[in-house]
């Protein structure tokens, strides 16, 4: 897997993707909501795919349909047109082969950290006790060793979100969906969490769809950044980030990083967002 980043070529992304390893395939998806006053287009002809082990960031202003896209991928909503396939299976009901991380950590206040991670297993009807070792291992990896028996309210915002990430990983899903997971954190914690997530992703090599409105975050984490514009949500560009893994805090000051970030910023300026 580690060779993927360097082996990738610049250019049209479809041509460089091995069709045998798609985690997610979205083709010509449009979404129109019916409201009392008429039809509101949320997504317009969206096509993209995610390779197995790839980190895809969806970058866009609020109201561009990023969250709608995640709802489509997880099978909570269905597109007006087009097809959504997760691991080659058309999505027709809630997809269970995913781990989801939301903007808020949505931990259950009455469960301790370990219990919150194991909730995923319990809801799936699995044997939680059998997963305890793995849960502890994940928590250690997320820097939460010693906090297994704490209640969520005893944790800081960053730690809570890390628990939420562990909960999304415990059942070893092939695809991780993250909806602005660090949006509610302060800037310093946020930067630290981005580093942590990158490390976790680098170690586990999950396929990730990461929704964000933060350019730096997207460039730092992603293999490719899908830039969206709003009303209706359309793809402005799919940018490949050719910065080798693992990325470090120094990456942020590298010329490639700065060039890519300003390029994306320019896209938004042109689109009238900035």
């Amino acid at each position: 897997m580690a060779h993927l980043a360097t082996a990738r070529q610049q250019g049209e992304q479809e041509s460089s993707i091995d069709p045998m390893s798609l985690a997610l395939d979205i083709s010509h998806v449009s979404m129109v909501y019916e409201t009392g006053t008429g039809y509101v287009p949320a997504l317009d002809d969206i096509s993209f795919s995610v390779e197995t082990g790839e980190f895809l960031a969806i970058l866009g202003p609020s109201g561009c349909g990023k969250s709608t896209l995640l709802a489509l991928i997880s099978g909570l909503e269905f597109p007006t047109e087009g097809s959504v396939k997760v691991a080659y299976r058309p999505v027709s009901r809630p997809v269970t082969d995913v781990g989801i991380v939301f903007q808020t950590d949505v931990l259950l206040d009455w469960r301790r950290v370990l219990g919150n991670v194991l909730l995923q297993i319990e809801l799936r009807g699995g044997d939680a006790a059998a997963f305890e070792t793995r849960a502890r291992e994940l928590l250690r990896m997320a820097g939460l060793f010693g906090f297994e028996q704490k209640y969520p309210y005893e944790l800081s915002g960053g730690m809570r979100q890390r628990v939420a990430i562990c909960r999304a990983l415990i059942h070893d899903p092939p695809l991780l969906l993250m909806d602005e997971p660090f949006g509610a954190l302060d800037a310093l914690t946020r930067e630290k969490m981005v580093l942590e997530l990158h490390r976790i992703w680098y170690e586990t090599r999950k396929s990730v769809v990461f929704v964000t409105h933060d350019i730096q975050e997207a460039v730092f984490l992603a293999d490719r950044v899908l830039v969206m514009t709003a009303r209706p949500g359309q793809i402005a560009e799919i940018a490949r980030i050719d910065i080798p893994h693992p990325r470090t805090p120094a990456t942020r000051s590298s010329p490639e990083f700065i060039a890519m970030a300003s390029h994306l910023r320019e896209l938004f300026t042109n689109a009238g967002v900035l």
Partner: protein
Amino acid sequence: MAVESQVKSMMPAQTKARRAGYRLLRSANTPLVLIAIFAMWEIGVRLGHVPSYVLPPPSAIIFRIVHDWRLVLVQTWVTSIEVLIGFGLSIVISIPLAAVLFQWRWLEESMYPLLVASQTIPKVAIAPLMVVWFGFGLAPKVLIAFLICFFPIVVDSLIGFRSVPKEVMWLARSTGASKWNTFLKIQIPGALPSIFAGIKVASTLAVVGAVVGEFVGSDTGLGYQLIVANGTIDVQLSFAIIIVLSILGIVLFAFVELAERLLLPWHISQRRVSRANRSRA
């Protein structure tokens, strides 16, 4: 990690300290305030030469409770039983009913107005009917206590079941969890703080219900004794009973609070854990 937790814990630590101090002050204050009120009452009545049949001094009331302890104890026992059964029934019936209403939206929509209507009928108005239907025994008092407790528990339980954030439900759906499993593991525990709020309100109403029942038709209980005392203008005994009734209500409320504290150590209203252990971060 260290920086993050320090930055994060500074503000709450201050508010926490202030809150802990406030709580200490408050718990020490309650008896003090009570003593002050009783002292002013005592002095006012004695200095103003208020006749004892209008307003007896607190010392006389307490003396009366001690003097008639056997009567007070027997009547308190009778009323307590009515209160406990009515209150217990309301908990056992209201929460499952709320759960059922929550599961079937159409049922809730058709039942809810009836529930509200049932609550708007003054219990005093139907108490005589209860006597006609169920006689002078335990049953009508228990029923009235039940009826008065029932509504706040149902309403607050429903609010609790519904208050689960949509992201949590989304998470549950992504696990393919059954409706029952979701209800058991997420909605019920999530609703507990709300349910307890309803039970707390009900606990104070339960005593009212039982006494109303006793007013209308009874030959025992604190409510009956209160009617008798009023009839003979035995104001001392009236006050004695009123004080015992309020103690009964407070004790019931305290038990509910204790249960809440034991069951919901995680809830915001119960948090006592010091922030010191955060510094380990």
